[in-house]
């Protein structure tokens, strides 16, 4: 190897003349006090950028940027310099991170008013978000278009980003929460939701909380993982990977620096299950993460939750504090002799950060760009260390498996899709909301459970923007991994968005294409350019009012194949799937 220019005197970090104001300095100090500042050692300076993942304080970059945004209303050149200097991060890289996120601003908004984020995705469009925009603007609100806010069951949705005041979701205050299936004895994952007091550890214990952790400690790591494997539990975050295999792989890696991550970034349009679970049963997320930590021998737990979920964040943080105070987190978890504790990190408006490797980069203080796989997270995850990352729904399933054993768990569902599944119903459906049914329930039965379609059923979007449209002829399809796969569909993250025959499907599909264009991280060519060009073709189609020309159809297929085959991550792989299914079903492209 040629000698590297390490320690080159020109490698000093350089900061421009802009200084943080007093208020900006206070916002930075609130996250990283001056005493903790990155120590400037000549030989260390050069390794703070780029791939030196574990070095220093860089993982606090996103929290510091959040703090500046929240207190000041934007991230100014002085604020950025102050943050970068305190953390020892090159300012150009800090700027690259700040400009990655929708909730962070790097231009002066010229005001300090709250920003009202209004959802423009399908469920909210069907529920009249335009009328809401008009009335908000008439009141003088600063309205900003947002992708799905994870509140599709109570569309149209808003999220208010506070400046100097807490963020808030207006519907949280108005809501009298109850599940549509409240009291149904067949509920498993949702058993406690709406029943337990989510702010009280005692209430959680009264509902059987922490029995599973005690049982897991009794059983030991190998037996727990064996049960998870035998149960056939698969991931609920979209990719349906077997959880037992993932945990086994992490457990087999040498310690001690291993991680368990709960992926609560939930941003797939149409998904709101994780929000409801985290808001109404936060201790179950904490308990199941703790079981994962002990079983895989990982002392470090992380919750990455989307920035638009202030109530879920507060409840999880409170649950963590209570669990810690009760000795259920910390150096000796519930007398097990093992250490496990949890840190919470907030996203800042980026769908792509739900992709597991993008999520790691985001926590580490880098741009939320996915990494090429292999290597996989089980060996090279957070801080390039072994990591088990799971969706909260996946995690909560673990509680019953540990208590009842895998056979009882398999008593519902199908052989290849055991257990139950959460479905997020929204759009033109009688009772929108979160439902739990055994795998194998048909789509028609699920819609009936939710009060049936309102109006003449046109189509159903399964799996969200990354999923596919199916028509009324799919009502008999059993909702299992195997049946949906065979039908060329997907369950994805459990999205079921219902459209009647009056909905302008061209507008819906153009919006889906726009979503992918907006949310592509931009790293790889097939997705960065493909999502842009796909949107342009669909806008042209919409404006033309004519049937899709054959050469345009070919172009869409050509772009789709390249995105599926050559993109780095699942966003590019799925960016054309809903579009093409809409064309195949004749929902769009026929003329008008």
């Amino acid at each position, binding site marked *: *190897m*040629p000698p*590297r*220019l*390490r320690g*080159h005197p*020109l*490698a000093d*970090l*350089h900061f*421009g003349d802009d200084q943080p104001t007093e208020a900006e300095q206070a916002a930075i100090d609130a996250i990283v006090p001056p005493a903790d500042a990155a120590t400037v050692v000549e030989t260390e300076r*050069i*390794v703070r*950028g*780029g*791939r030196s993942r574990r070095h220093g304080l860089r993982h606090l970059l996103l929290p510091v940027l959040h703090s500046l945004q929240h207190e000041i209303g934007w991230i100014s*050149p002085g604020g*950025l*310099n102050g943050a970068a200097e305190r953390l020892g991060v*090159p*300012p*150009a*890289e800090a*700027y*690259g991170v700040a*400009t990655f996120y929708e909730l962070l601003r*790097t231009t002066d908004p010229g005001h300090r008013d709250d920003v009202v984020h209004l959802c423009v995705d399908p469920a909210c469009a069907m529920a009249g978000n335009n009328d809401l925009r008009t009335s908000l603007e008439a009141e003088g609100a600063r309205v900003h278009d947002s992708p799905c806010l994870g509140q599709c069951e109570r569309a149209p949705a808003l999220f208010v980003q506070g400046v100097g005041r807490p963020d808030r979701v207006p519907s949280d205050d108005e809501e009298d929460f109850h599940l549509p299936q409240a009291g149904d004895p067949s509920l498993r994952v949702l058993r406690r939701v709406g029943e337990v007091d989510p702010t009280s550890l005692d209430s959680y214990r009264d509902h059987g909380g922490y029995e599973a952790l005690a049982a897991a400690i009794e059983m030991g790591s190998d037996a727990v993982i064996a049960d998870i494997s035998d149960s056939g539990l698969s991931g609920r975050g979209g990719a349906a990977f077997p959880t037992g295999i993932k945990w086994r792989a992490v457990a087999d890696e040498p310690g001690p620096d291993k991680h368990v991550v709960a992926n609560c970034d939930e941003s797939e349009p149409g998904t709101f299950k994780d929000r409801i679970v985290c808001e109404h049963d936060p201790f179950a997320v904490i308990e199941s993460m703790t079981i994962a930590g002990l079983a895989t021998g990982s002392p470090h737990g992380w919750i990455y939750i989307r920035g638009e979920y202030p109530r879920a964040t507060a409840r999880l943080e409170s649950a963590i504090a209570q669990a810690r105070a009760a000795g259920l987190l910390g150096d000796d978890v519930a007398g097990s002799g093992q250490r496990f504790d949890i840190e919470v990190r907030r996203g800042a408006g*980026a769908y792509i950060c739900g992709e597991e490797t993008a999520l790691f980069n985001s926590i580490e203080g880098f*741009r939320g760009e996915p990494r*090429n796989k292999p290597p996989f997270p089980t060996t090279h995850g957070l801080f390039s260390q072994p990591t088990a990352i799971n969706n909260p729904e996946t995690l909560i399933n673990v509680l019953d498996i540990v208590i009842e054993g895998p056979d009882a768990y398999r008593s519902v569902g199908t052989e290849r899709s055991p257990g139950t599944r959460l479905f997020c119903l929204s759009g033109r459906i009688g009772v929108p909301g979160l439902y739990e049914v055994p795998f194998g329930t048909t789509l028609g039965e699920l819609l009936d459970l939710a009060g049936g379609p309102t109006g003449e059923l046109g189509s159903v979007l399964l799996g969200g923007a990354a999923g596919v449209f199916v028509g009324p002829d799919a009502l008999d399809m059993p909702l299992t991994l195997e049946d949906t796969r065979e039908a060329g569909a997907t369950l994805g993250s459990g999205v079921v968005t219902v459209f009647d025959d009056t909905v302008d499907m061209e507008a819906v599909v153009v919006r889906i294409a726009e979503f992918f*264009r*907006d*949310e*592509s*991280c*931009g*790293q*790889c*060519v*097939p997705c*960065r*350019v*493909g*999502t*842009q*060009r796909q949107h*342009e073709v669909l*806008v*042209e189609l919409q404006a033309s009012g004519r049937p899709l020309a054959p*050469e345009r159809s070919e*172009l869409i297929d*050509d*772009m789709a194949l*390249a995105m*599926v*085959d*050559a*993109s*780095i991550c699942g966003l590019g*792989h799925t960016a054309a799937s809903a579009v093409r299914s809409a064309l195949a079903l004749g929902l769009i492209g026929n003329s008008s």
Partner: protein
Amino acid sequence: MSSVATETAVTIRIDGQEVAVPEGATILDACDAAGVETPTICYGPTLTPVNVCRVCVVELDGSRALVPSCSRPAEEGMVVHTDSERVRHSRKMVLEFLATGVDVSQADELGQWAEHYGADPDRYVPGGQTMDEPVRVQDNLYIRDYDKCVLCYRCVEACGDDAQHTYAISVAGRGFGARISTEFDVTLPDSACVYCGNCVAVCPTNALQFKTEFDLRQADDWRPEDQTVTQTVCSYCGVGCNLELHVQDNQIVKCTSPDDHDVTSGNLCIKGRFGWNYV
């Protein structure tokens, strides 16, 4: 890359032909060894692979999607196809996509591959988004014309971890709006830039250009065919960096250093790279 010729060999099959490469070699290395030419854009022999352009993808038996040959390590028994329908399609689409939004007129190699794979950037919706960036001329040493930028990350890598450790530039923004930028797009003289020119040396599209070249091109007087290249050793200090001085009409118009030189790996400092400017 480092030479590990004596270590264990890995045998893989490329388009039906067996090749043995040292452990740690990539599929791209194996393609090179087998004499199979592969297009690359973001890959650089002196840079850590970022595998973002995806033009080097190959089909790997047992893998659902295509894999980037520049970063994927060769493993014993792999069966690789470099000229299948799927490979040709994705390579063509990458080249086509780039040409729809970026001025690739000075990226010669890219143009040759685009022709090879039959890329047709004209079949897209007229008036689509492009990079649409003004040329940044902020000093007398080099210019940045991001209309020509394919976002290969090579300059970022060269400025950061892989050579210079200055971190003056990064990728900012997201999606199609992503751009190479200093913090808040401050000018280079106001940034951390130390004018080593290593970013200019690795740029595959001429988005980064010596000011001398830029001026000559503006004057329509850039004549590579009339240029001679003189090898010399930089005289500013004792390190012994090799310089290649490109001369047109008795004037030095740019300065490079060979990628495979063991002192520089293609990297220089401001004195070597631009020192002739002051002479």
